[in-house]
């Protein structure tokens, strides 16, 4: 079956150096590479997305990518109603031949590596996790990060704080909570949040660690290097291009709906950003762990619930 156009829907604008931007940029790149036109519907929020889905379906795209876990009920329903193929996130069980695929993007493997990196680089022995809320993808990355830290050095202390329920845009809250974690001894912050992550970054930039040195920031999903002031230690980068490309190819091969997609270290769709702040020897050690994961020697189970995160950080 041929596909000449596809649509992607995101809840926020594609300029967040994060989830939305990775989705939109990835879809555009995949489309460019494989000759598929891409319609972008961004900033749709988390409310009623059905009208937009129906409207996009009227243009008879070969695929609609519903790039938010909040869309995973609506998209398959509208897909079924209008006969358009859809890709959704966070619902592996929704897989339907010829109709629905899932790509649960979880950077947990990369986050584990980030944990290893943080454990090796902390001077104070305390690392912090700040999130703007507790959606499944944040949870799985927080949990894997904590596992990576503990696996590297069980003595280390992990401090964990959530800004608020769905406080995605609360930049001031992000800064305040990050400052508290720094005061609690953290000198490396693993931060997840959309707008609020800029507040976290600002806190890191303006608050010295207990020893007077720099606090370093580990970001997720996107690459904030262009706006970095020297505090970005790393980022768990996602690359959705291979995922979307695979979907397009499966449609062309009439195999759509026979498998789900994911991102992982092995094919490079998840990667750890190497910033100049990371010494080469430590980077090499982290890469060793990466190889273990890629080879399957080490498996990291994703944990999507908040309780697992809480249990891991308190070390229970």
């Amino acid at each position, binding site marked *: 079956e041929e596909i000449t156009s596809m649509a992607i829907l995101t809840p926020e*604008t594609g*300029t967040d*150096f994060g989830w939305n931007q990775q989705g939109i940029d990835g879809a555009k790149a995949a489309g460019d590479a494989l000759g598929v036109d891409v319609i972008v519907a961004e900033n749709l929020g988390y409310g009623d997305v059905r009208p937009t889905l129906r409207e996009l379906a009227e243009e008879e795209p070969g695929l609609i990518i519903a790039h938010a876990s909040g869309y995973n009920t609506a998209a398959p329903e509208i897909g079924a109603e209008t006969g358009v193929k859809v890709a959704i996130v966070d619902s592996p069980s929704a897989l339907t031949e010829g109709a629905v695929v899932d790509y649960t993007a979880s950077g947990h493997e990369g986050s584990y590596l980030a944990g290893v990196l943080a454990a090796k680089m902390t001077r104070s*022995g*305390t690392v912090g996790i700040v999130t703007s809320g*507790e959606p499944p993808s944040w949870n799985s990355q927080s949990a894997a990060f904590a596992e990576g830290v503990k696996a590297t050095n069980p003595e280390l*202390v992990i*401090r*964990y*704080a*959530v800004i*608020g*329920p769905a*406080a995605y*845009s*609360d*930049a*001031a*809250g*992000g*800064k*305040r*909570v990050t*400052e*508290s*974690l*720094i*005061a*609690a*001894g953290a000198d490396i912050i693993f931060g997840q949040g959309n*707008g*609020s992550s*800029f*507040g976290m*970054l*600002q*806190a890191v*930039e*303006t*608050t010295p660690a*207990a020893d007077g040195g720099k606090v370093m920031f580990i970001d997720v999903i996107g690459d904030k290097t*262009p*706006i970095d*002031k020297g505090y970005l230690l790393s980022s768990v980068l996602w690359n959705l291009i291979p995922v979307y490309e695979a979907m397009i190819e499966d449609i062309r091969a009439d195999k759509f709906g026979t498998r789900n997609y994911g991102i992982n270290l092995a094919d490079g769709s998840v990667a750890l950003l190497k910033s100049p702040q990371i010494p080469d020897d430590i980077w090499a050690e982290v890469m060793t762990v990466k190889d273990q994961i890629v080879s399957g020697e080490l498996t990291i189970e994703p944990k999507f619930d*908040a*309780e697992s995160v*809480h*249990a891991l*950080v*308190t070390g229970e």
Partner: protein
Amino acid sequence: MTLFTDTFLIALIAGMAASGVPLLLAGLGEQLSEKAGVLNVGIEGMMLGGAYLGFYIAWATESVGLGFVGGVAGGILVAALMALFCVRMGLNQIVIGIALTLGAEGATALLHHVQFSRLYPRLPDVATWRIPVLADIPIVGPALFDREPVVYLAVALVPFLVYVYRRTHLGLALQAAGDKPAALDSAGQNVLIIRSFAVLGCGALVGLGGAFMSIVGAGVFVPFMSHGNGFIGIVLAMLARGRPLWVLLGAALFGACLSAATALQVAGVDIPTDVVQMLPFLAVMAVLLIAGRNAKLPAALGAAYVRGER
């Protein structure tokens, strides 16, 4: 290593102040406006106006001081629309308030999109003033008495407003404008001027709060960053029933609850985050249930004043 070190406690108390100041300013502003009879549900919009313009000017001029002036101007800009529509023309205050909130949300997000969304500029740390003796008090001193000057200004506004409300004719005029505007009018004072003044004053205070949020609180502007603070300001103003000190206490309570929530999480106390986040609201509901009694609002609150109308 114990968690509750001085540094951590200082950060918690400082965090309380940082999240409390915008609420304090929002509450004081709303209170001023309500006293004069204008129910201002547009303060979320005024806050965003202040946050955006304050941040923009602080960033463009690299001057924090000018930034705060810009914040005040941003708040006043939105408030001027409120004064025009609701005080001058007498349009429905709730409709206009919500319209201004939506409009300011959209406009500031749009401006941010055009100007900052590729760069997300962040401001450097804001200089603090150390208050000699007080700053030496352990824990509380560095947390509260080595702060950005705006914090002192915000707190100083409390006694200042108490003075204005109780000891000046302006205070009486404000109260009359809210309780019985016809009486004020027939006494020869222009109700529309008093009310406009109150609304613009509200815009100035709230805008300053917004600027505090973007310049000091976050150091960055992001869309929708006021995040419901304006609505909490309305609650604080109504709870305080015209008394500025109560707004201060309420803002401190909210700030304290937010800090406490963070402290609980950082300490690893395993209660669901959402439940922890309900704390401040539960606290206020508890206060209401225990101490709640006839909370009288100004009699003419929300009603436009038209001379000779009856």
